[in-house]
């Protein structure tokens, strides 16, 4: 049967995406979770994945074209019985030349999206994609001065932005992988602004904080790491994520999504790890099923995610799936942070800087390493009482690091 692959939503703040590259050609097999295309969003170039086993069909969107979330991008043949996915997964070691895909996209029907957009806005005699308009405005270029190379001479992103044009040329070249655009920090700023403004407008946050004695976890981790080569050492931030993930098993009301005022629990515990982008910006890609991963596996996943944040190559499921966010500003010296929930999530956990402080233990004031854990949660879906129990359990788990 024929289905369509649609532009996925990679977060509440995403309205549209620009196709940078088809990773699959018509006729190629895709297993669930395979990357079908690279799409440029405000969070950088994202590898988007399919949700079912399928065979790639006719592309419906051209490289360089910007389309709204939900727009059909390609036809997919879904077979009744699962195809030989093993062969599909192993058979793609060598990158295929892309002429075929290019030929197919050249034959596609005119860009109905940009036409609809133009009709809706009714403001311009120029045919131009929304991304091209926005980029032209940002660069202070007049559409009159630009030559359109899109369908029927429409002005598309590559006509405005040299960087996007370069990416496209790379994608259509027969040899080698396409060069990826780095992160557009201005666009990312806009996305953060939209999401955070919506969060503060719509979500009634409550905030809790708790001081946790981190001495046992710190000592345990130092002993463990001392015996290991650098590449196998684990960061304290990984213990934080694991403690939160395990605790969420008992607090499903903090792990999920607000859907129009109703709570939808998440299928798994997918912890978004807030990662600062140098130059300004923030993403919180998901570590899937964090509660089921060992500390070593979690560290590897986190290492990989940070590397791909730096390189600007995240996957769609990592952006759309987080069911809660954990933010550690621990290295920047702040005592605590009260996070703003990233919609449609319903909670964010923060950890401040672990520091030596006076602490009362067995009626004695002693120096201990302390950290302040905080919870910001959506009061529509949970109450402070449960939130307090949650934070207490996170703190308790950190007293027994060997159980993490």
């Amino acid at each position, binding site marked *: 049967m024929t289905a369509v692959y649609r532009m996925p939503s990679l977060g509440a703040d995403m309205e549209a995406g620009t196709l940078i590259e088809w990773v699959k050609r018509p006729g190629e097999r895709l297993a669930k979770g395979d990357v079908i295309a690279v799409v440029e969003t405000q969070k950088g170039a994202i590898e988007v994945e399919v949700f079912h086993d399928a065979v790639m069909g006719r592309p419906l969107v051209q490289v360089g074209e910007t389309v709204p979330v939900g727009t059909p991008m390609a036809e997919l043949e879904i077979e009744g019985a699962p195809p030989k996915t093993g062969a599909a997964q192993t058979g793609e070691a060598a990158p295929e030349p892309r002429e075929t895909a290019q030929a197919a996209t050249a034959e596609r029907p005119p860009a109905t999206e940009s036409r609809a957009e133009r009709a809706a806005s009714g403001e311009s005699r120029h045919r131009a994609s929304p991304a091209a308009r926005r980029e032209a405005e940002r660069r202070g270029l007049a559409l009159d001065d630009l030559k359109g190379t899109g369908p029927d001479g429409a002005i598309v992103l590559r006509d405005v932005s040299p960087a996007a044009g370069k990416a496209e040329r790379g994608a259509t070249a027969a040899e080698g992988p396409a060069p990826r655009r*780095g992160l557009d920090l201005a666009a990312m700023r806009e996305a953060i602004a939209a999401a955070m403004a919506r969060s503060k407008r719509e979500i009634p946050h409550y905030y809790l904080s708790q001081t946790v004695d981190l001495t046992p976890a710190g000592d345990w981790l*130092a002993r463990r*790491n*001392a015996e290991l*080569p*650098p*590449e196998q*050492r684990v*960061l304290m*931030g990984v213990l934080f994520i694991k403690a939160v993930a395990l605790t969420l098993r008992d607090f499903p009301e903090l792990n999920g999504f607000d859907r129009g005022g109703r709570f939808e629990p998440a299928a798994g515990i997918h912890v978004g790890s807030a*990662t*600062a*982008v*140098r*130059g300004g910006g923030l993403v919180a890609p998901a570590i899937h099923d964090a509660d089921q991963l060992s500390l070593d596996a979690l560290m590897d996943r*986190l*290492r990989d995610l*940070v*590397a791909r944040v*730096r*390189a600007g190559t995240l996957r769609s499921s990592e952006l759309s799936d987080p069911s809660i966010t954990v933010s550690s500003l*621990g*290295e920047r010296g702040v005592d605590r942070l009260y996070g703003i929930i990233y919609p449609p999530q319903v909670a964010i956990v923060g950890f401040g800087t672990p520091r030596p402080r006076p602490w009362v233990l067995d009626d004695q004031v002693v120096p201990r390493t302390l950290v302040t854990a905080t919870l910001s949660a959506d009061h529509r879906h949970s109450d402070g009482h449960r939130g307090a129990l949650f934070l207490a359990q996170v703190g308790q788990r950190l007293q027994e690091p060997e159980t993490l």
Partner: protein
Amino acid sequence: MTPTETTREQLRDAALEELINVAPDLAEETIPPNADLRETLDLDSMDLVNWIAALHRRLGVDIPELDYPRLRTLDATADYLAARLGG
């Protein structure tokens, strides 16, 4: 140029090269040898551990966790590595 200076410079270059490998977004920055890597370059703890692991792989130098704070700048790192290598 004395052999020691050569070694120190080579170590500093190696440290810089590995730094760019783990933080490719810094490739176009000018990184002064005495710049504080955390403060000036905004390296986070994951960048630092990846960098230290890369130095360990490349040079075979063990760098205990307690010594991480000593790798504050490229110059300091070159000095530290030279000492660890028995220079």
